[in-house]
């Protein structure tokens, strides 16, 4: 019964809670991120056997990728930059810009995109549609409630800053 109330609120974009405003910063330890990647990879087949991400200062990071693919080295280090702005025009899309890998390593990019649903590759840019993933998992679209969502990194941590607001006019 209480579950039904919660479900109804989720479905209506928390229409019974107009004026709600929550903001904050969530630091995500790199270990948690790597465990999540390990969990995703455990369910997947394919040549990518492991991915470890080292988070650095200034939205920089390095992915260490273990692969089992003919003509490619067994491990690759792929530096990348995380775009800070995720919430844009009612969409929640995280963008990762890979440092241009040369030769056959470039062939890895579509493989990386294929690791997770909702990830698309365009050249060296990987886009992760977080809004669609959350909607798929929860059945609810939270994007209209997100005022801002930004990502920043420091050594060993990904900091997620957010601001969520339920509009007054939903009353």
């Amino acid at each position, binding site marked *: 019964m209480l579950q039904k*109330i919660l479900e109804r*609120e989720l479905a209506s974009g928390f229409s019974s809670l107009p004026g*709600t405003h929550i*903001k*904050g910063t969530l630091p995500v330890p790199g270990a948690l991120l790597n465990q999540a990647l390990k969990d995703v990879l455990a369910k997947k087949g394919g040549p990518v056997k492991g991915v470890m991400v080292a988070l650095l200062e200034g939205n920089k990071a390095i992915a260490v990728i273990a692969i089992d693919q003919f003509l490619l080295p067994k491990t690759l280090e792929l530096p990348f930059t995380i775009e800070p702005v995720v919430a844009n025009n009612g969409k929640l899309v995280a963008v990762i810009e890979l440092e241009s890998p040369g030769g056959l390593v470039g062939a890895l990019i579509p493989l990386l995109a294929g690791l997770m649903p909702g990830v698309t590759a365009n050249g060296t840019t990987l886009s992760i549609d977080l809004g669609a993933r959350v909607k798929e998992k929860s059945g609810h679209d939270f994007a209209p409630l997100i005022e801002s969502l930004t990502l920043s990194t420091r050594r060993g941590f990904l900091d997620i800053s957010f601001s969520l607001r339920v509009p007054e006019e939903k009353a």
Partner: protein
Amino acid sequence: MRELLEKILSGGGKELAGLEIEGVIPIRQELINETIAQGLKQGLTKEIELPKEAKAPEASQINALLAHVKRAEVTAEDGKLTIAFHVKVTS
């Protein structure tokens, strides 16, 4: 993943240094009354069932997490209850 989250909780959130959340949640009295009515209907004393593999947090863990609550206020006016809170993990 669950083990890692439990480890973070068992450390009283120390691994989450830098976490900060503040907010204001106005709740209409209709929603509060509906929730109370539903709670009474299904029995307030009924134990909450946790997923099989989940462990209920220990009192010490809850106390350690509560130590990070910097402010919690409730005000009531014009048919709504407003909860304001501020949580900050500094170490």
